[in-house]
């Protein structure tokens, strides 16, 4: 059988907390340029999987390959340098900084100024800062339509906008793979549609591979190229949206065992 070329590949990832098996031999892979969704009921291990990629969690078993390099033992901050960016389920922005500073921080690994040139500022550091500002304004702020809030402090912003700022920060990292953990949670219909549009734009125009965790099935089925379904730490299905929609195991995981469903309905 021909093995597909994966950009990011997970092999037999196993993770447990005490006696609780959070991930059980999960293997999957993401191809370059696709939108790959991970879905599953609450507590299925979706976020755990992302945390393993980011190296917040250290899986007991298994390897993670990124562009054919083993990243399973890298430090978290090095992962960013490799080109893997991430947003969080609960927004993890720097609350007391302005939107602009948050986004600038995203570009941290691409900047060079240190404690000497930064402190002197004029010269190299200033040129770098101005170029960065221009890049952020014209590439990111313009795309995500957050011009009017760029100088506001993040913690005062509504939730939907914070999510957008977090996406902007991730984009400033110039990632090759972007991990999005529930980007549309807590948003109204319009905001959700905006977010879906942003994700598609980013994927198509900038050629960034996207791994998406989302509970909004409308969004997932609409924009995903492939979907992976987790249930109690195990992968139960993987495939195109059409296949997943009609997969029996998936329907069971979401709706419960058939007989139970029927007995509940009957009661």
């Amino acid at each position: 059988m021909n093995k597909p070329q994966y950009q990011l590949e997970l092999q037999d990832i196993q993770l447990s907390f005490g006696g609780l098996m959070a991930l059980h031999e999960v293997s999957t892979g993401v191809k370059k340029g696709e939108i790959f969704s991970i879905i599953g009921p609450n507590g299925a291990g979706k976020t755990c999987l992302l945390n393993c990629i980011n190296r917040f969690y250290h899986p007991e078993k298994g390897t993670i390959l990124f562009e054919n390099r083993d990243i399973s033992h890298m430090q978290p901050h090095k992962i960013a340098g490799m080109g893997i960016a991430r947003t969080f389920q609960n927004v993890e922005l720097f609350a007391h900084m302005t939107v602009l500073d948050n986004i600038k921080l995203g570009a941290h690994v691409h900047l060079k100024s240190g404690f000497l040139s930064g402190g002197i500022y004029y010269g190299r550091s200033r040129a770098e800062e101005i170029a960065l500002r221009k890049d952020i304004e014209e590439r990111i702020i313009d795309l995500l339509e957050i011009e009017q809030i760029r100088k506001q402090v993040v913690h005062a912003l509504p939730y939907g906008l914070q999510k957008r700022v977090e996406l902007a920060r991730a984009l400033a990292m110039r990632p090759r793979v972007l991990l999005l953990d529930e980007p549309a949670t807590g948003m109204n219909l319009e905001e959700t549609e905006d977010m879906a549009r942003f994700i598609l734009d980013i994927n198509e125009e900038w050629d960034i591979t996207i791994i998406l965790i989302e509970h909004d099935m409308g969004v997932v089925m609409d924009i995903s190229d492939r979907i992976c379904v987790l249930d109690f730490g195990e992968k139960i299905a993987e495939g195109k949206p059409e296949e997943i929609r009609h997969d029996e195991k998936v329907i069971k995981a979401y709706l419960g065992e058939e007989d139970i469903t029927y007995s509940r309905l009957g009661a």
Partner: protein
Amino acid sequence: MRCGDFKETYIEDEAIFQSLFVKFWLGLFFVFLLVFPFVASAYLLYVANMIGFAIIAAVGLNLLTGFTGQISLGHAAFVGVGAYTSAILVTRLGFSFWLSIPFAGLVSALAGLVIGIPSLRVKGLYLCIATLASQFIFEFIFIHWESMTNGITGIHIPPPRIGGFEFLTERNFYWITLFFVVLGVGYARNLVRTRMGRAFVAIRDRDLSAEIIGINLFRYKLSAFAISSFYAGVAGALWVTFLKVVTPDHFPFILSIQYLAMIIVGGLGSVLGSIFGAVFITLTPELLNYLSEVVKEYAPGHEEIFVPMKEVIFGLFIVLFLIFEPRGLAEIWHRIKNFFRLWPFSY
């Protein structure tokens, strides 16, 4: 009126001093600083020098505690390390004062690096205790390493000189202090608006997130400790050279607390705030001293009540700040500026 100030380039928008108006007032203030030593009395110049040393040390502590969020209760110890380094280099190895300053900073920074190592494992209150330990360790060293520090008798330091000119008086020393204050404040202000400063704040606000975007916590926390201690070391070297003597009594634990008070009253995470705080904390006791003189003159017999009241009033100020203006004098300044931006038509 300062409204209607529109920016057309990114350079303008990234500048520290955002308008001509600001530059004008800053220029005026600078002229005042230059004229001040020619008109002020020796006592006022003494106070001005003390404020200068406090500013340098407070800016350093603010970089560590206010920006990076690592609380340090041992800042006075690093001031001491710098002070002794400079004193020993000048008196024993015949270094010139000017050369001893960067060395004082570097040795202090090195000490800061070592003391900063626990910060990688412990946070908040626990780090507090770890840095508190450094305070007492260094105090102990200052007193008991007699072959180096002369113990409690201390070291006498000759005044700095350029050619045949000696910086002996408060007035002459003022120029040295002013030079280092401007340098230190300028450096800090630039640092916090570039890559490294942003990384500091990121660590303070949310360290997990900081790691995700590629900030090496290990390196940046230690850098913060080193830079902060460098400031402390320079402040210490200047201070004891100004006093012409260094003894262990100069760096008690209470001084560390005072530096913390400066940045809390001034405003955590604000370079301008550290200046305000340093001025406030240095001036208040002097003002209270003056007040007690007045009380003695006009209401003799009451000074027994007023003299201890000084400490109480000083403490009260800090408590009131924590309650009513936790973001410090810098925030008050900000509000005043915003008020005048649209004045007199505020809507």
